[in-house]
């Protein structure tokens, strides 16, 4: 048996009165890639945070190289070679790459920074990672994937033996993911142990040596990755059959007058002359690579972002270009891809989040806020969307990603929208919640509403959309319907091989 890099024995953990881990046993061998999968709220993040010293277990034992250890903080874990790379970047944006790599562990010479040594070491690490990032570039000028590389370089600068990665590919493109996987495999071959959290099961299948499944704070099983297929993993995660991830598409909605007509919208640097129509009862997918301008286009449509030209007609009447409030009054809502930064007030309780768009409907006779009505709306949302919450007075930040997303959707539904624009609605949420979101979208369309779905996950676009528009570098490249809606065709347009409609 290979040597164990880390091990947990019957670890338990609660947040306040909410238990999140029950007697979890977990083994990490030296030089293996060990995937940790489970729905949101299953306890994955908590478990790895205990490994990395962010949290301490309430009971149970943590072993490193077979000996019991306690990490009072992340510094202690890092000193022992255990490093965690965050889902959200932990980089100082105004500092350079090399300053970030050595942040908090600067190399000193005679009491002053030894910049030359740090520069050389940074360059070495980056080179080993196979990237061309300039060590002297400012982090804020880097692309998202390069930032991810810097995070990894930062961890490697510590000579870490255990590397914990929490959804490292969430923001990467396909090409970047390939590079990352090569690096991860190379690290493993050098004896580094990797804990890999992901919701993308095909990645887990492709990358991991072993897989541990968590569900509701319990360890369900640990298996060799070669012995599980993606369906098995999904089934183990949710504990039931996921017969059909996507709801069946309805009949092609017959096209009368468009509900929404977007004409030649431009937004400097992001969108050029984009036009499209949206019809009642359809799901219109927007595909494209990250940075294709889809988010910016939709923000222009609803008035959240200033456009330099173009008009938007809702049922034939122009919409205000400068006010999202005008869109809301016309029952057009937009779900931001940035749930924590733009979607929800994470430090506030649930009720004020759900009612913020519809406070005028939560007033007493005298025009004051009615707490009871707000609570009733929250109850209704919790029931309708099957939200799992620790308590009704919980803050949004205490919910898992999937449950936060349900609250975000519930917030939008309060205005009884006619048009729903969803930007990456399943980012960072578990497969069970994903399925619920898919059925929710289809149901909206079936009720005659219109839905725009922006997604970077092609299976999602293909599985849900009645019609697909592909964007590339701010330009609408083409529109696909019927049989054309498949991954290969979309990629041809998204990468610029096909298309480029005059528009």
């Amino acid at each position, binding site marked *: 048996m290979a040597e164990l890099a880390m091990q947990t024995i019957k670890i338990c953990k609660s947040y306040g009165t909410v238990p999140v881990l029950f007697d979890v046993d977990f083994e990490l061998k030296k030089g293996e890639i060990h995937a940790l999968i489970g729905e949101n709220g299953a306890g994955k993040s908590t478990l790895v945070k205990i490994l990395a010293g962010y949290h301490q277990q309430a009971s149970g034992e943590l072993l490193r190289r077979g000996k019991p250890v306690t990490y009072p903080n992340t510094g202690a874990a890092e000193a022992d070679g255990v490093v965690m790379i965050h889902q959200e970047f932990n980089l100082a944006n105004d500092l350079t790459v090399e300053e970030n790599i050595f942040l908090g562990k600067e190399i000193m010479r005679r009491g002053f920074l030894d910049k030359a040594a740090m520069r050389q070491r940074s360059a070495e690490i980056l080179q080993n990672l196979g990237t061309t990032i300039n060590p002297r570039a400012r982090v804020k000028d880097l692309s998202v994937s390069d930032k991810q590389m810097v995070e990894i370089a930062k961890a490697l600068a510590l000579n870490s033996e255990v590397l914990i990665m929490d959804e490292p590919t969430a923001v990467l493109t396909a090409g970047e993911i390939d590079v990352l996987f090569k690096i991860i495999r190379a690290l493993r071959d050098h004896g580094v142990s990797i804990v890999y959290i992901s919701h993308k099961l095909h990645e887990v299948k492709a990358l991991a040596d072993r897989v541990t499944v968590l569900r509701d704070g319990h360890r369900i099983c640990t298996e060799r990755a070669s012995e599980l297929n993606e369906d098995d993993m999904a089934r183990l995660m949710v504990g039931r059959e996921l017969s059909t991830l996507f709801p069946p598409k309805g009949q092609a909605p017959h096209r009368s007058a468009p509900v929404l007509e977007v004409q030649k919208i431009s937004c400097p640097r992001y969108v050029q002359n984009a036009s499209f129509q949206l019809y009642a009862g359809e799901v219109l997918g927007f595909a494209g690579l990250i940075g294709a301008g889809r988010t910016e286009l939709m923000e222009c449509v609803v008035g959240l972002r200033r456009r330099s030209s173009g008009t938007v007609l809702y049922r034939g009447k122009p919409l205000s270009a400068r006010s*999202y409030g005008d869109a809301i009054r016309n029952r057009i809502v937009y779900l931001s891809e940035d749930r924590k930064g733009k979607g929800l007030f994470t430090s*506030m309780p649930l009720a004020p989040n759900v009612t913020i768009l519809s406070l005028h409907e939560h007033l007493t006779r005298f025009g004051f806020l009615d707490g009871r009505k707000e609570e009733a709306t929250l109850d209704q949302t919790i029931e309708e969307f099957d939200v799992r919450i620790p308590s009704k007075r919980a803050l949004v930040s205490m919910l898992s990603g999937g449950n936060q997303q349900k609250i975000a959707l519930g917030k939008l539904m309060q205005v009884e929208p006619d048009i729903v624009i969803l930007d990456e609605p399943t980012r960072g949420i578990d497969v069970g919640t994903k399925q619920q979101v898919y059925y929710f979208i289809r149901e909206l369309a079936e009720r005659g509403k219109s839905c725009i779905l922006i997604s970077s996950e092609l299976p999602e676009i293909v599985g849900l959309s009645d019609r697909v528009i592909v964007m590339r570098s701010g330009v609408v490249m083409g529109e696909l319907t019927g049989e054309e809606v498949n991954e290969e065709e979309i990629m041809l347009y998204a990468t610029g091989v096909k298309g480029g409609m005059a528009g």
Partner: protein
Amino acid sequence: MNQEAATGWAKVKELGSRISWQDVGPLIAVFALMVLGTAINPTFLSMGNLTNVFTRSAFTGIIAIGATFVIGTGSIDLSVGSMAAFNSGVMIIFMNYLVQHWGATWATVTAAMALSLLLGAAGGLVNGLVITKGRIESFIVTLGTMGIFRSLVTYLANGGTLSLNLPVRGLYRPVYYGTFLKIPIPLIIFCLVAMVGAVLMYKTRFGRYVLAIGSSYHVAHYSAINVNRIRVLTYILQGICVAIATIIYVPRLGSASGTTGYGWELEAIAAVIIGGTAMKGGTAKILGTVAGAIIFSIIGNILNLSDAISQYLNGAVQGLIIIGAVLVQRTSKE
């Protein structure tokens, strides 16, 4: 235990779990300080002294209620003390002018009060517009207007003191020194302002939007809240609170100079902070702000009554209290 008692106890427990120490803390501090004051000097508890203490808390207290809204959005207004001084100066000049035409009448005083409210709202509007339209940090803008207002009043007073016409002073005097049902009028006004503030903050859409903005500008924007408009409104509200404080301050001394309202901005902000409102916005405790203002007034009074610490060290003690209060809040949160 019978069932009724059991549910009764459950209710008490439920209530207990609902009380947050952050809310109650400042009130406990007020009570503790009163016990301390009495222990040091029994005259502390005399009606005359207590009245004096609470009345004095009214100026910064009223200003602090407005500041709770500004800070609730995550901004700050440093100009309130100077604005109060400027307002006082203009009121006095205006009354001294009107008295020539209308005599020492309530018409004169009322017109000056109206002018004060107008000036306060206008000052707040200017602060708010420059901050939102100019997209400048509120700290910078109000640091600028703080200097401007202070300098304007010094200029109006020609470097000296502006004094209110004596007959008008006599007429206006009861607004500060008078009582209603034995309660000093400034205290009544303070209570009213606090109550209106609490209703605005907790029971209206405006208040909800204030906290939403303080919680996150971006999320507020993406929730179709007109962030700039709400922010400007908080500054106007702050200006009106300054005007109200000025209206009850002018009859106290009947004069204004370059040092009028000196340091009020710090006292008001400190009252908000020890009351439990977070500097970064998103939470706002009106009752805490009231307690915060009273705490400062009591400390000053205790120092006056005791010989242990020189009253010149008042500022030092206040500073320690501010830092201590925030430390306590921080640790109780964790």
